[in-house]
């Protein structure tokens, strides 16, 4: 059983959220880390390679960042956001990228089942949440995505650099005007907050992935780096770099 650090930061600012994830990614030698967080204000994040103009919702959102992970845009509101940060040699990330998604999604599925949801990997199913030309993560799916009610409800993306992995995930508790008709937990658990869902998710990560999670905080160096790195993510030059 592998021991991981669990960092929880609710209602944090967008620059801090992204800066801390990058600081953890470059923090070689630190314990593997699972982070649960949420955003204040609600923020739209663009995938690393997306063109700003290809995401109409980016013009409507009041707060926008660009992630360093790939994939589509996400409106971080009424969701539990998580990140997993560790060496690529961790057993959780052994094998192909697809296999790592499958493991993480199976753990999330266990937590969702506790709410009465019956999530499955999309496979060859056709989803009702697919939309053309929005650039939104939840409107575009792949076979390994976790879906229920014929819609996508969990968004995921990774960054792999210098032998390290950053895995971003968004679990939709409710929907937003920018995301529309997607799968959410709301139908099954009205008023569910990220804080109230976190214990079930923690327990599922521990039991399904064989992790022992110890609550912790970023160390002084990680906090200082997060502060340095954060402003780039909201800098218009980076947000509109493509």
């Amino acid at each position, binding site marked *: 059983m592998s021991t991981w650090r669990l960092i929880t930061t609710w209602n944090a600012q967008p620059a801090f959220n992204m800066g801390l994830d990058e600081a953890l990614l470059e923090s070689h030698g630190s314990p593997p880390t699972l982070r649960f967080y949420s955003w204040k204000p609600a923020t739209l994040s663009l995938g690393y390679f997306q063109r700003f103009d290809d995401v109409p919702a980016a013009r409507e959102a009041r707060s926008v960042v660009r992630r360093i992970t790939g994939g589509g845009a996400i409106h971080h509101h009424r969701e539990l956001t998580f990140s997993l940060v560790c060496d690529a040699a961790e057993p959780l990330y052994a094998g192909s*990228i697809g296999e790592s998604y499958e493991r993480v999604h199976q753990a999330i599925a266990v937590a969702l089942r506790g709410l009465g949801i019956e999530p499955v990997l999309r496979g060859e199913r056709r989803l009702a949440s697919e939309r053309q030309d929005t650039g939104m993560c939840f409107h575009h799916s*792949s076979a390994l995505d976790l879906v229920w009610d014929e819609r996508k409800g969990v968004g*995921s993306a990774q960054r792999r650099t210098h032998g390290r992995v950053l895995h971003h995930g968004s679990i939709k508790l409710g929907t937003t005007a920018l995301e529309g008709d997607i799968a959410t937990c709301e139908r099954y658990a009205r008023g569910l907050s990220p804080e109230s869902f976190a214990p079930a998710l923690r327990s599922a990560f521990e039991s399904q992935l064989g992790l022992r999670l110890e609550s912790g905080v970023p160390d002084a160096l990680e906090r200082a780096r997060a502060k340095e790195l954060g402003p780039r993510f909201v800098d218009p030059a980076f947000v509109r770099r493509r």
Partner: protein
Amino acid sequence: MRPNDRKYSESHEWVKIDGETALIGITDFAVQELSNGNESDLVYCDLPEPGRVLTAGETFGEIESVKAVSDLNAPIAGEVVESNVAIEEHLEVLSKDPWGAGWMLRIKPERKSLEGLMDAAAYEKFCASLKH
């Protein structure tokens, strides 16, 4: 068996000396890892402008598959002479021909020695060890 006329890095790039220059690309193993065997899963790639000087191990570009953004690392030091920008719009080439048409950079190497990199047999063993 992978080509014997080049050397390989642990981050799955290959380098092949070609006269006064060297060609750099990524291996079939890297492509398979990124795309899960589905060539349309590769979506973006950024390569450097000519003139950039790279140190060995330095990140020279980035590639995105449907599920991850990954670094591209220089197996040897040198100055970028040419980037194969054609593949940025046709990433399926990486699946079809990673050893030829899928080359990414032509560099003027600082040294012609490829010491420290793996030959095809060693790389074969290295890849096999990652699957266990």
